[in-house]
């Protein structure tokens, strides 16, 4: 079992580091929700609602490539950044170790 570190930048700019399992087939969205972050994930992880929008502050290049569907959904958002992704489309993987994300989606 390989655990990785996921850093989350909070709204006050402090950073929380979380240990995440990579052998359970869960997405970054599911992991963040499981850690009580305010993510709605209305569509449940199908890249259809854009409520799990994150901006990747560090480690963007280590992520799997963005699909057309994911990009099209991100493109509807008013606050997209150059390193925006939908957390539901990012399955936790050893190569994602030590990425830093900021949650941008509509929270609770």
């Amino acid at each position, binding site marked *: 079992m390989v655990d990785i570190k996921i850093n989350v930048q909070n709204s006050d700019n402090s950073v929380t580091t979380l240990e995440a399992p990579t052998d359970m087939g869960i997405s970054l969205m599911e992991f963040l929700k499981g850690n009580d972050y305010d993510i*709605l994930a*209305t*569509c449940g992880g199908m890249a259809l609602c854009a*409520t799990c929008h994150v901006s990747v502050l560090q480690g963007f290049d280590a992520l799997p490539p963005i699909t057309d569907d994911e990009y*099209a959904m991100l493109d509807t*958002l*008013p606050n*997209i950044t150059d390193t925006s992704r939908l957390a539901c489309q990012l399955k936790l993987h050893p190569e994602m170790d030590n990425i830093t994300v900021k949650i941008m989606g*509509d929270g*609770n």
Partner: protein
Amino acid sequence: MITTDLAIIGAGPVGLFAIFEAGLLKMRCHLIDYLPQAGGQLSEIYPKKPIYDIPGYPTVLAQELVDNLLKQAEPFHPTYTFGERVETLEKRGEADFVLVTNMGTEVHAKVVVIAGGLGCFEPRKPEVEGLTRFENGKGINYMILDPEKYRGQRMVIAGGGDSALDWSIFLSDICSELTLVHRSESFRGAPDSVNKVMKLAEEGRIKLLLNTNLTAVDGSERLESVSMINAKTQEKTAIATDHLIPLFGLSPKLGPIEKWNLNIDKNAIEVNTDDYSTNIPGVYAIGDINTYKNKLKLILCGFHEAALMSHSAYKYMNPGVKYTMKYTTVNGVNEF
């Protein structure tokens, strides 16, 4: 005015199944949904996606499930109000509730069942200073209901999705001046719409501003101008306009339910798991909109909640009446 036994807010899968469960107990239902059709998220967001965890269906398409639920509810002749949002809920006495929608429709019910899923889908707003100053008829809208309203007027549309493209094409014939502002270099919408917009821009019928973000809105009584910045060149511009329509998709919000004095925890309604009743006697909450210990947001859990709610609602409506549970396998489904 509509009179019913159960007023069900939300016509998603759980609201629809509640009609059936209530129907078995001879209670009539009226459903109200902000969306223009039944099915909730299933029809609106993912009609063509397969669902694998409905008991008895190894796989079923979301829309197929909705169609089947509608059919299952048919013998009980439910009535519907679509495209309206319930704004107020008032209790006038025991088993006497009055609900009023944003369009003024009044529903009188003995019991209220909130099956609102994640709430209403409301337009996403960009983070631009002063935006709220010009809402409510002062120049800024987030959806277009009557395009004729914009005839001969100047308009700025912001956004890069299909709705921004489609409305730009449509309104280019109606507005005297139309500017489409998009954050990035290119559009990812339907290729046909993208080509049409590009062609209209070449012909000078749409002013297209790419790599551009809105920064501010100005005006005295009404909206008069929109300021923006080019993300590449950092060049700032202001465009004089009568209307601004930001089109950035929809996002779910709890909405007016928040103000009904229900106990709410993290955007969900707290319920008693004995019967999914809320803190207001006669008001129930079922499906994704409720919360309790070990809550799972699954359709199948919502179905269970609908069954328990119905039996409790029956007792609430008929105090003192003894009722024995009957099985459909023994009694069938008796239309009324």
